[in-house]
């Protein structure tokens, strides 16, 4: 299917209607915009160039260069159950910036209208107003602050002033490096070290932008924060870095969304997310990942290699990861919790859908270090078409993690008979007062259920979507309400064509 080109003046509804009719991936269009690229490939000069573009201090440049030196000695991991052609890391652009972003806009009013139109079409509000039609809730709770990242740069961040009043810092990471160097220097790489793994190390060398959040002690962030990632430029990797610091007794809920145009060639996305939780802090991190998954034959799509980790440093802190992974040709992602403080809690709720030729290898790591730490894992994997879906998870109870608990539930659902589901749990318990429970099920979408739904008037795809949404219920209900609705629709869309 060809990209739908949008001419100026074509109204969004028409575009959306056409996109609906052409089915499947709704966000596959491309924004025609003049883009400035760094030279192809990666080497210390490219690393220096990215650092210079972001006007970074010397220590940051050095940090990147040492990560790069390390990366050159590393090899790609091969243990995941994913199969893809060798990535040529020298034939990718590591930096792409719309030319109109050359001079940093002073406010959202100064942002290139084409960029604003892009986010409008994606349904991402970049105006500071009540949003999300159809969701009824009090005016105050309806607002979501957005950081919009387009290829390698942050386009703008909303509600900054209001958040500032509450003491919350929410800005792009490039800005944070310039404006809050002490905070960044203290925490960056403290959860995911620059040497952590092949992709995280590459990210440490070449990350161009991303989001930064700091919530001061005792503050409950007055609104949801979110980052919306859009890859637009062809043949370009997106390497973003997110750093969230929740100081003592604070709370923040953070959402992340991702889309990309349809391209015939695969594109690399290697992100790092670090979350630091001090005493009694709570962070809820939700992702709706809808990168372009490639076509039915497996052509194109995003290769998504992501390292996400939260460090519950302070006692009684709590982190919760919720992810809905419907996109990407390859997903390699294990949002993890280091339960360092005593009485800390980690949760991981995941829905991973793989259709057509998609491959997902995803799960979590729960590392129990502190006493009486608790973790809960609920994973729902759905495979359709010829897709392969693997849950890979580690639960590790260290000797000092006395009286700790884990509960893991992994359910797989198969649609059709050419797909696969795999569960690979690793469990290490090194004390005798902790308890680990693991439950796993694999089932097929039942013909009787589909016939029952159809005999009541639903078509086959509606019936599958309903049954699958039911299967995912426990995870969907963990999402913030506005995301839950979107996610339900996404579940339906990503399974189109999976039956019949």
């Amino acid at each position, binding site marked *: 299917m060809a990209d739908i080109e949008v001419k100026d003046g074509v109204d969004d509804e028409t575009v959306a209607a056409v996109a609906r009719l052409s089915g499947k991936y709704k966000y596959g269009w491309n924004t025609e915009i003049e883009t400035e690229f760094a030279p192809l490939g990666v080497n210390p000069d490219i690393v220096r160039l990215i650092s210079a573009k972001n006007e970074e201090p010397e220590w940051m440049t050095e940090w990147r260069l040492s990560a790069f030196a390390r990366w050159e000695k590393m090899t790609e991991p091969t243990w995941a159950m994913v199969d893809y052609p060798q990535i040529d890391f020298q034939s990718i652009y590591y930096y792409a910036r719309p030319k109109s972003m050359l001079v940093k806009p002073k406010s959202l009013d100064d942002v290139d209208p084409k960029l604003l139109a892009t986010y409008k079409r994606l349904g991402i509000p970049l105006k500071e107003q009540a949003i999300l039609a159809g969701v009824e809730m009090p005016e105050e709770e309806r607002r979501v602050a957005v950081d919009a990242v387009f290829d390698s740069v942050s386009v703008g961040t909303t509600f900054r002033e209001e958040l500032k009043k509450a003491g919350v810092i929410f800005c792009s990471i490039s800005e944070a490096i310039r404006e809050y160097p002490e905070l960044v220097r203290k925490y960056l790489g403290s959860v995911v070290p620059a040497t952590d793994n092949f992709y995280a190390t590459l990210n440490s060398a070449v990350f161009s932008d991303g989001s930064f959040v700091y919530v001061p002690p005792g503050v409950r962030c007055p609104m949801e924060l979110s980052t919306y990632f859009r890859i637009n430029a062809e043949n370009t990797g997106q390497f973003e870095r997110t750093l969230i610091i929740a100081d003592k007794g604070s709370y923040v809920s953070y959402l992340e969304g991702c889309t990309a145009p349809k391209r015939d060639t695969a594109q690399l996305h290697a992100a790092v997310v670090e979350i630091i939780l001090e005493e009694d802090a709570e962070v809820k991190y939700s992702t709706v990942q809808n990168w372009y998954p490639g076509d039915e034959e497996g052509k194109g799509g995003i290769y998504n290699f992501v390292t996400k980790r939260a460090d519950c440093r302070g006692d009684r802190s709590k982190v919760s990861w919720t992810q809905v992974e419907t996109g990407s040709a390859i997903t390699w992602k294990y949002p993890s919790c280091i339960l360092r403080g005593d009485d800390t809690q980690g949760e991981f709720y995941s829905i991973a859908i793989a259709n057509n030729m998609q491959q997902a290898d995803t799960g979590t790591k729960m590392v129990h270090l502190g006493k009486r730490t608790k973790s809960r894992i609920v994973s729902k994997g759905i495979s359709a078409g010829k897709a392969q879906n693997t849950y890979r998870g580690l639960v590790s109870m260290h000797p000092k993690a006395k009286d700790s608990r884990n509960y893991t539930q992994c359910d797989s659902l198969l649609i059709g008979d050419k797909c696969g589901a795999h569960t690979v749990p690793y469990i290490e318990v090194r004390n005798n007062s902790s308890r680990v429970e693991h439950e796993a099920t694999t089932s097929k979408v039942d*013909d009787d*259920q589909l*016939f029952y739904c*159809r005999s*009541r008037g639903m078509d086959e795809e509606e019936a599958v979507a309903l049954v699958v949404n039911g299967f995912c219920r426990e995870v969907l209900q963990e999402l913030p309400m506005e995301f839950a609705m979107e996610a339900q629709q996404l579940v339906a869309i990503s399974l189109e064509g999976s039956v019949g």
Partner: protein
Amino acid sequence: MLEIKGLKVKLEEEDKQILKGVDLTVETGKVHAIMGPNGSGKSTLSYVLSGRDGYEVTGGTATMDGVDLLALEPEERAAAGLFLAFQYPVEIPGVGNMTFLRTAVNAQRKARGEAELSAGDFLKVVRERAKALKIDADMLKRPVNVGFSGGEKKRNEILQMAMLEPRMCILDETDSGLDVDAMKLVADGVNALRAEGRSFLVITHYQRLLDHITPDVVHIMADGRIIRTGGPDLALEVEKNGYADILAETA
């Protein structure tokens, strides 16, 4: 309303003929009952009419108001006004009963080119109709049929029927597994839906359901054919003498 002529059906998987030429006409606004011993093909008839996979039609026709039912997908038959109350209602974990009902109602409305019901309007109608069937708010919230008792499942089928307002209702052994009170509740629900433009085909093994839902016509089915047709008295005859006499007569 429903016209079945010489319908022959075999199982897809094995070479076994189940229906061997069924002729049946249900007029608009009438209640027909089909009785028969186990294995006579009663349930197969209901499944074939509603479009379940696994059967192959080898001869004959089935039309509803002149429309060839057998050419339609199950959901198209539903939108055209056909409804099957299942003998064994299916459980759908994680899907709220209310969500299921609303999705079904709106899917049919959409198929017929009607506007979808708003959440508010829908809720009002559901509550009212659920109350008549003694279905409480909790049962509407619970996942479809999951953990429902036999009686709750059957009442839930009737609620779906009440919400979807079909023109042709097939009840497949709706009385099976019900105690007397539950059966009465279900029968009351069905009777409340009896209307001029709506026809019923009540499939049952026992006569007792027909004490509560009085049929206009009773058919006896055996070995894949309708072997006798009569008035409500025929059901009483079966109740008294069993199927043996009737079977012997036609043998």
